[in-house]
């Protein structure tokens, strides 16, 4: 479904990873592992098309990828349902159903303004977006941050159903989500970036 060959990524002019090749088949998940700063987020942003790769190819079917970043993109003045319906309509999908709200335990919060939600509730709302936009390949950046154990369980079961339905996922996470997935250790692909000298910062001001 997603095929990546000889990919190299760059963050702010600093090369991070090179020589990455992997494939994600329908129904399978790939978990990215590596210490902070190795380039998990940059890799996911590159896969999502937000930045061009420095080298290599990414082959994905058109209109199949959904990206979920650290930030949830929630509008505080809109209610939970309005937030979800906005994303559903942007992707040309039907409005959010009660089943989705229950799945993410948002049914009692549906009319609440999103600004009044707790951090974990906001995260659940951000993740529920993935359920209403109908994309096959999910690119998830630390999806379980600020979730409690029960919510992690809910999200893992959502992901499992997504995979069983022929979807796939690339996930940067440090915790065990409790389903079988290939683990990609990023450390071997790390490039030893030359230490920045003070003069390198001039670039930012040109």
């Amino acid at each position, binding site marked *: 479904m997603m095929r990546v060959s000889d990919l190299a990524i760059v963050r702010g002019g600093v090369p991070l990873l090179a020589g990455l090749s992997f494939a994600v088949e329908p129904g399978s998940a790939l978990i990215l592992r590596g210490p902070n700063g190795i380039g998990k987020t940059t890799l996911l942003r590159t896969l999502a098309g937000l930045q061009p790769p420095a080298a290599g190819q990414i082959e994905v079917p058109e209109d199949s990828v*959904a*990206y979920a970043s650290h930030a949830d993109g929630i509008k505080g003045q809109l209610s939970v349902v309005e937030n979800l319906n*906005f994303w559903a309509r942007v992707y040309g999908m039907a409005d959010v159903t009660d089943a989705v709200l229950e799945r993410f335990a948002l049914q009692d919060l549906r009319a609440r303004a999103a600004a009044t939600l707790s951090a974990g509730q906001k995260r659940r709302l951000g993740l529920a977006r993935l359920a209403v936009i109908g994309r096959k390949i999910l690119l998830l950046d630390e999806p379980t941050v600020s979730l409690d154990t029960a919510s992690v369980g809910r999200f893992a079961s959502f992901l499992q159903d997504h995979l069983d339905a022929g979807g796939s996922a690339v996930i940067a996470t440090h915790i065990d989500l409790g389903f079988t997935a290939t683990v990609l250790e990023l450390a071997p692909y790390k490039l030893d970036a030359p230490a920045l000298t003070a003069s390198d910062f001039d670039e930012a001001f040109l």
Partner: protein
Amino acid sequence: MIALLRRDLALAVRAGGGFGLALVFFLIVVTLVPFAVGPGQVQLAAIAPGILWLGALLACLLSLDRILALDYEDGALELIATAPLPLEAVAAVKALAHWLTTGLPLVLVAPVLGILLNLPGPGYLWVVVSLAIGTPALSAIGTFGAALTVGLKRGGLLLSLIVLPLYVPTLIFGAEVARRGALGQPLETPLMLLAGITLASVALLPFASAAALRVNLR
């Protein structure tokens, strides 16, 4: 696209959306002018079209950095950029939403404020016409400036510096249409030029805005 427009309009009119900001600023500027320059009727009538245009332009400028910065800060802009909407359309919709929530109300209150400035009788029509034709250019240019500065902390200053020179042609021809209208002089030429600036801005700048957004979202 319609979903994005409706969301932006809903956000603008709800609490904290800044819908009234430009309008109130416009009102304050125009109300204070007679106090500053004196209540002489001849004097006020002479400067009324220019003051109305200048007030509308500055009021427009005030709300520009909200066009994209809010979506950038909460991560929504990245998610919109990965959604199946062309970024050019996103930029165009953002400009349209800004015009509907800022430019259009300014056009509608301008004749009321014209009374405060002793605007001559024939001027009312032409102030409204010139603002209605000119303010879409202000929104399109402003969206381009907002796209250029979207990733910057406190980008408002830079945004103003970038956008103000680009606003000058619109201001010159817009105020000229209003001035000639108030004096009953022929105004076809500045009106055509004003319309030309607006059409070119609305047609071309969404592409420039989208290109700037792509670079800034990297």
